[in-house]
């Protein structure tokens, strides 16, 4: 039941993402000149300035996985895990709602070394993806998830700061190369302090809260998260991005993910807004309208009826804080 009323919300979210991409691509006006030429070095160090984007399946699931029919599935005709079918919330998307397969980005054996009790939470997260994934509510993506969301981000590198501006939801990170005091409170994106090891930018990220996820598969961390990121320019248009993830509350040992980030080489590339909290408003608050707005969808083969509900009592507030 819970799944059905949210069906169209997923449609909206995914269409919004798709449209975002289309808009970016359709700005094909002839540019006066290519993106401002960047010097190879700033202050004698590798220059990462530019617009970048991951081109992988990490935001679906960091771990190696075969393609599956949807992010939310139910038992199919057979009782086997490999024969499940899409569940109601994503059924109308057909193959566009499927999860692409991936060899994963987790180094070594490809598995996240969860403690047993943490693994149980991860599995609950996955089963309750629609209610729990912060991305569906357009909450801040956290670090490192911001780096491999299916949205571009821009690096502006100076001598004392490296600023990262993400298209997704106005998210930002400032990597401090100089000495600064930390934040007064825990954060979604962490507090980033960088240093150079040769031409590799090494960033220590701390002061996290426990609310962000790593992907749409329910992989998560606690507020004890500590990241060590390594940015290395493999070629002018490829950054090799590596993160070691430590969190003794959740994992039995540190683990590492690694992936290339590619330069968006279109000469007219620029970050466009993706202010998704507006797009998620109907998903989050449509149940509180005086009159239900998104009620029913009719295609040639399918009619979808949406029933909104308001969580009772404290659950109402818990929903917004998940």
């Amino acid at each position, binding site marked *: 039941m819970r799944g059905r009323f949210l069906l169209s919300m997923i449609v909206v979210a995914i269409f919004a993402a798709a449209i975002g991409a289309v808009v970016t691509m359709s700005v094909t006006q002839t540019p006066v000149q290519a993106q401002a030429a*960047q010097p190879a070095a700033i202050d004698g160090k590798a220059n990462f300035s530019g617009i970048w984007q991951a081109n992988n399946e990490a935001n679906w699931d960091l771990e190696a996985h075969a393609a599956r029919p949807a992010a939310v599935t139910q038992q199919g005709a057979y009782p086997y895990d490999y024969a499940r079918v899409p569940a109601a919330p994503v059924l109308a998307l057909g193959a566009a709602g499927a999860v692409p397969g991936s060899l994963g980005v987790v180094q070594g054996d490809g598995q996240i070394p969860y403690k047993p009790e943490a693994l149980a939470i991860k599995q609950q997260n996955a089963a309750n993806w629609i209610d729990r994934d912060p991305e569906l509510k357009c*909450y801040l993506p956290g670090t490192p998830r911001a780096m491999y969301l299916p949205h571009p981000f821009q690096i502006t590198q100076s001598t004392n700061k490296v600023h990262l501006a993400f298209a997704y939801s106005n998210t930002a990170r400032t990597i401090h190369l*100089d000495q*600064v005091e930390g934040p007064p409170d825990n954060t979604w994106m962490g507090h980033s302090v960088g240093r150079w090891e040769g031409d590799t930018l090494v960033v220590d990220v701390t002061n996290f809260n426990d609310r962000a996820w790593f992907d749409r598969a329910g992989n998560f961390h606690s507020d004890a998260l500590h990241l060590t990121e390594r940015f290395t320019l493999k070629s002018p248009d490829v950054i090799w991005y590596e993160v070691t993830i430590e969190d003794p509350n959740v994992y039995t040992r540190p683990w590492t993910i690694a992936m290339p980030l590619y330069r968006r080489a279109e000469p007219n590339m620029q970050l466009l807004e993706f202010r998704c909290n507006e797009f998620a408003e109907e998903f989050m608050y449509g149940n509180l309208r005086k009159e239900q707005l998104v009620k029913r969808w009719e295609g040639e083969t399918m009619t979808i009826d949406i029933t909104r509900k308001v969580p009772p009592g404290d659950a109402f507030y818990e929903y917004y804080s998940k």
Partner: protein
Amino acid sequence: MRNRFPGSMIGVAIAAVAIGVVVSVSVTGTSAQAPAQALKTPWGEPDLQGIWTDETTTPLQRAPRYASQEFFTEEQRAELDKQRSELLGRNKRVERGTELDVAGAYNAEFVSVKRTGARTSMVVDPPNGRMPPRTPEADKIMAADREFRLALLQSTETCKNKSVACNGGKYDPKPSARRTELPPRYNTARMNRFDGPEDGALPDRCLTLGLPEFGANAGSFRRIVQTPGGISIFYDVGQGQGWQRNIIMDGRPHLPANIRQWYGDSRGRWEGNTLVIDVTNFSPKTDFQGSRENLHLVERWTRTGPDTLAYEVTIEDPTVWTRAWATKQDFTLQNGKENRIYYEPRCNEGNYGLPGLMRGARTEERAFADGQGPHPATKDIATDFVGVEDNPFE
């Protein structure tokens, strides 16, 4: 200007602390004097980097009593500082238990006060320090919008008591039939109804307003980071809200007209030591003093000294104003090591206010339907501050 209060009083507190520390730093006041030659980046561009804020408060428009006086005298500033600091922490209340008292919960107790600025107004052109007259069409649109909001207020205590929030309207115990209508145009401000999210003000929805950014009660901070041919600006506008812009510096034209953005489209260039940014392509959902998708800004950022930056904006919208107008502010460099900028906007992540407002409205409707409460139209859920604070600038 309506501000957003749920959530992050921390932002205000931090701003207050920062401002408290630096209040004695004087603002250079006037204009782009010859900047010191050392204020360049290693790659030779003017260096605007750091965290900047206007450490003083200057009203957008000049009070008519100052006529063509562009700067306060020292005596006038001292007197205004005195009057304004007397408001600081004053817990002025109206009759306890009334709607107006509850609506005034965020009074001067919660607002930090910065020193009075050197200028009598941010507006420097026209020379009277006031926005130019609106076009007749814009006046008509504003009037229709106001009339709609007043209709929604007509059955409330606010109108019954002839509070200033009801100016231009009148009390009528019978709820207006307009309660079921759409506003004359896309809503950006709070109204006395909460049928859905769109009835809320944009800040209620975490859709913070953008440019031009003049700072609300607690002011605002901007961090500028530069790279050769690139500039990124992150704004901390208080209350846990913020946003960013990345200035395109390579001379290419603006975005196609069908792409509209909340923060517009910024194209920058250097004119000598001044960064000039042309901003267009605003969304019709934005609203600056009545100007929406046709707003056109030309910003001029000039480093005027080691700790000072002049910020000038020319504001133009022929559909709203009869002529272009211009503002000027002076920003002061903040301590980079203290790093007291809130660069993680997380309004949406803690927005209990918006669902709470809607749930409250649904609850009141149900109570009324069950004969357990008054008609929701007789309650005022839109008005705050009114009648509680004085403004010595006026």
